């Protein structure tokens, strides 16, 4: 049933024509959203697309979904060219756009799923089985009869995921599926995608702004910026290098003392009573750094976190400067 490579993308380019001022009289201008990207996702793999706003992630996702034509380049999803065999292609994929709703506002969740059953010609027995499984996994039993208009964002997103999966797609494409979700819903979505891959071997391509999504799900991480691929590596490789970095913020009750930072830590920002330190926990474990800081006079508060995606990308630019 599975193809060796579920998704193959080669030298994909997309240029949008936009009119300045939005009117028909304005001059046209070109925006290059994708500037020649290539990658392959084998069947059964979960690949994460990360990059700052405007990097071209959604553009790539729409081309893969078959609803946008590229300017040039080739794409095959399970041996179909999405925009040329649109109807056959969309019958086999499931898509979630995090900020848009595919369920029908006026219908209940259950009615929406029934409509999707007929759209995708899902056999009744299989439909009932899938519906039960999705309702269990995504905690939908309580909201099946509720109209979509009345759902909270978290409930709606979980229903959206069910809607994208009711027809057992071979490939699922998720554009920011966890955006705006509360913590329990995020966990439910992640767990569900993980199980799906394990049980059905579904290929998943997702974009996200949340590094926790990547950490929980992705086998592969593709970093994209300004329409180009900056890095494409297994999650472990990325984690060992760029993703491992941590940020520590320390507040002092008085003026900043002399920090005398140990090897592996650098001071990256400084206020009058606070300091930001970037460190690599592989070289300098967090407890050691914290122990060191605790010896300093006037230490008030400590926070440790990870750098934002934007910072990671900036780092990539510095590292891969062309």
């Amino acid at each position, binding site marked *: 049933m599975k193809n060796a490579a579920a998704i193959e993308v080669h030298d994909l380019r997309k240029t949008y*024509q936009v009119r300045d001022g939005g009117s028909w009289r304005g001059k046209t201008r070109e925006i290059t959203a994708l500037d020649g990207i290539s990658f392959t996702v084998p069947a059964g793999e979960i690949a994460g697309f990360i990059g700052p706003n405007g990097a071209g992630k959604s553009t790539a996702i729409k081309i893969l979904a078959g609803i946008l034509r590229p300017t040039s380049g080739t794409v095959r999803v399970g041996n179909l060219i999405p925009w040329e065999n649109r109807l056959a292609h969309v019958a086999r994929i499931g898509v979630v*756009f995090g900020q*848009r709703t595919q369920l029908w506002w006026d*219908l209940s969740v259950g009615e929406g799923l029934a409509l999707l059953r*007929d*759209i995708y010609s899902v056999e009744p027995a299989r439909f009932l089985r899938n519906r039960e499984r999705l309702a269990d996994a995504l905690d939908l039993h309580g909201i099946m009869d509720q109209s979509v208009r009345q759902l909270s964002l978290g409930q709606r997103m979980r229903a959206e995921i069910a809607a994208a999966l009711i027809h057992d797609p071979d490939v699922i494409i998720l554009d920011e599926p966890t955006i705006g979700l509360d913590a329990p819903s995020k966990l439910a979505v992640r767990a569900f995608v993980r199980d799906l891959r394990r049980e059905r071997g579904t290929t998943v391509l997702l974009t996200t702004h949340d590094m926790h999504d990547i950490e929980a799900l992705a086998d592969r991480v593709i970093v994209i910026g300004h329409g180009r691929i900056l890095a494409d590596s297994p999650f472990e490789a990325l984690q060992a290098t760029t993703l491992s970095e941590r940020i520590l913020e320390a507040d002092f009750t008085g003026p900043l003392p002399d920090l005398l930072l140990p090897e592996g830590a650098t001071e990256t920002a400084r206020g009058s009573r606070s300091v930001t330190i970037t460190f690599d926990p592989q070289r300098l474990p967090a407890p050691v750094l914290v122990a060191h800081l605790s010896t300093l006079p006037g230490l008030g508060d400590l926070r440790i976190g990870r750098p934002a995606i934007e910072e990671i990308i900036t780092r990539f630019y510095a590292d891969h400067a062309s």
Partner: protein
Amino acid sequence: MTIKPYVTSFVLQWKIGLRYRLAVLAGLVAQMWFGAISLMAYAAVYHHAPGVDAPMTLRQAMTYTWIQQSLFTLLPLGCLPAIGEAAKSGAIVYDLLRPVDLWNWWLSASLARLLGNAIPRAVLLAAVAGPLAALVGLNGWSLAPPASLWAAILALCSFILGAFISASIVMWWNIVTARTLSPLGTYAVGTPLAVLLSGMLLPLPLYPDWARELLLFQPFAGISDIPIRLYMGMAIPGGVLTALGIQCFWLAALTLVGRFWMHRTISRMEVQGA
């Protein structure tokens, strides 16, 4: 290719229409009110100019008005609201992600929406303006029964064609909405156009001679004007076949050109991004 999704879509839209029972009642009251005012105006005109050779009798004008009022929501006043919402929110891209024929998909929903709105009102209004009005002694003001059994059969076929014509015009509004990403323009243009050209404002047979025949040959006449004339057994230039022929012509033309235009619109969305 299966028709199941289109049928399901039709049924669901129909149910949504029925959910708004209060709106049906409120609309009914408004329609009765407008109907009554029109009737009084006609009565006044007809009584003050008894010598004029009008193309319709007062009785026909009253029946015409009642049926038009009861079919107000069958008119293509603008795009399908769900498509307007989807265009504004960007969810319209999901319609390209469905393995269905987009024309049939939107058409079945549009038709269901029109019928789901119109039929409950039409039934209620027919009951009030027909037998009930007769019962309370307003015989002269009431809705007359069809001219004959044959007229009833012809009118039924014609009403069905009319509903499809209206849904096809709604499809054109849907396409405009998909292109402009806003439903407002279609309501601004569609509502006055439909109210005027369908004969809702003034029955088409009452227009001056030079306009009367022209007005018969535009698509909005096929929605309710032609079916009503058949119902009342009114003479139509060219006869019954011409009447049904005009309807079939517009249904075919709106569908063929509309499908082509929709195809172009989808291509444009695929290039420019929705």
